[in-house]
């Protein structure tokens, strides 16, 4: 009885090794000409099956909601469902790496934002936007410096004035290595203050930061309309300044940082990416679908309700936009050292 058991085992393992040895060779033998033709056909037929869009964050966050919503509208124009899959973790690089290494056939896409640059500059991964084919920018979410209503400051300028006179007394929460870490450094630089005047404390994500601020364990953090509006309406929190070119329609009374003499405007810019080497024809089809989705008034209204601006940029413009963005982050990254 033991013998037969052993035999089966040996057979299985041999099969496994055989399979692992043979399979790749068999694939490589395919003829190049036939392949080219097949590729052209694949572009023409695309999409033949559901498309997977990877969201590198947990469900429920702003990135998750925005992409799930937009995909619902975009898939109507593609004729195949877009299935959103959450792959959170490691400053969003679990998801981005999955897409980076996926087949460049247009069936695996990434929905992400500036974090691709910050994960690179904070040393989590060794690749940034250049590892992908950017398809289009869809939205920009301006960030807002926020504090608790019980604290005396009414603008970011006032807060920074006090920080300058008492370095290290004011506690500012941030997620190290993520976008808001770069944002606060950028604000400090634009205001011309040393980066050490604020006591930076690390929290994972915006939610825990708001909780800590509500409990008055910290003095401030970067938030946005969707995450903090409820607390501002209730009188628990107040906005100190919008990091954007103009005031936001939902909060017309809150001055921009520029109005306060801090020349810093930056948003979280969400866009769609494909693995490097995805055929141009397929990218064009996806771009078209998202463009139509972003023109849909219903979709637009839903996004604006969340305090996010619709900011569609097609592939060519987006590539240039990302180049500029990388330069900005490069400058900020120098400050972190």
């Amino acid at each position: 009885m033991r013998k037969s058991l052993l035999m089966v085992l040996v057979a299985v393992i041999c099969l496994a090794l055989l399979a692992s040895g043979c399979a790749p060779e068999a694939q490589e033998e395919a003829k190049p000409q036939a392949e080219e033709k097949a590729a052209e056909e694949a572009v023409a037929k695309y999409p033949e099956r559901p498309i997977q869009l990877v969201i590198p964050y947990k469900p429920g966050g702003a990135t998750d909601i925005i992409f799930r919503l937009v995909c619902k509208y975009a898939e109507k124009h593609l004729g195949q469902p877009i299935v959103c899959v959450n792959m959170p973790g490691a400053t969003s690089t679990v998801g981005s790496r999955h897409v980076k290494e996926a087949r460049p056939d247009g069936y695996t896409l990434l929905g992400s934002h500036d974090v691709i640059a910050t994960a690179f500059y904070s040393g989590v991964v060794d690749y940034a936007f250049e590892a992908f084919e950017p398809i289009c920018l869809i939205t920009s979410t301006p960030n807002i410096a926020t504090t608790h209503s019980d604290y005396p400051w009414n603008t970011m300028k006032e807060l920074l004035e006090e920080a300058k006179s008492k370095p290290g007394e004011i506690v500012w929460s941030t997620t190290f290595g993520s976008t808001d870490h770069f944002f606060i450094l950028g604000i400090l630089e634009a205001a011309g203050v040393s980066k050490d005047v604020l006591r930076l404390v690390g929290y994972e994500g915006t939610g825990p930061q708001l909780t800590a601020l509500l409990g008055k364990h910290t003095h401030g953090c970067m938030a946005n309309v969707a995450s903090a509006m409820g607390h501002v309406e209730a009188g628990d929190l107040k906005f100190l300044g919008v990091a954007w070119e103009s005031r936001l329609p939902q909060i017309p009374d809150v001055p921009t940082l520029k109005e306060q003499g801090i020349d810093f405007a930056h948003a979280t810019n969400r866009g769609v990416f494909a693995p490097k080497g995805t055929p141009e024809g397929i990218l064009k089809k996806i771009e078209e679908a998202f463009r139509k989705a972003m023109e849909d008034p219903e979709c637009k209204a839903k996004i604006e309700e969340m305090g996010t601006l619709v900011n569609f940029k097609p592939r060519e413009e987006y590539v240039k936009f990302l180049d500029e963005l990388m330069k900005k982050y490069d400058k900020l990254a120098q400050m972190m050292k």
Partner: protein
Amino acid sequence: MVKTRKWDAVLAVVMLLLVAFMYWHTYALPQAGKWDRLGPAAWPRMVLMVLGLLSLILLVTSLAAGRAQPSRQPKERPSGEGSTQESRSNRAKARLAVTIFALMFAYILIIPKLGFVLSSIPFLVGCQWILSPRQTRLLPGMVVLAVALTLVVNYVFARYLGVYLPSGILR
């Protein structure tokens, strides 16, 4: 159960080696930041110290107990009767464990190559056969279960969860 003390010492030594290796590795971690006085290395070190201390305690107590009872007296055993039978069944269980781990290893190894469907069906049939009393009249049932489970899981994941299990050479 006879060799419990000996194996305790082995466990303690393995853990101590792990602790030593990891502790050495903590020196490669970045230094503490300006406000973050503990830094990335402090917590792992605290945990490693606790684990190391506990392993030492286990090592010392197991060695001490081993010296106290140098000859393997049946005192260590929960009960005297049926011990030979017990050790035989223990050995059979260990063999079974090795079999299952080997099968799992082979199965996981071939999924990326052959794809989920082509590797799961033989795994399910083979594993069932090995665990079963090996009567041919059971075989059809096993095959039906293997094929049905594999196909249903494959379909449900692709259709409803957007998870495409590796398709391997079936693509």
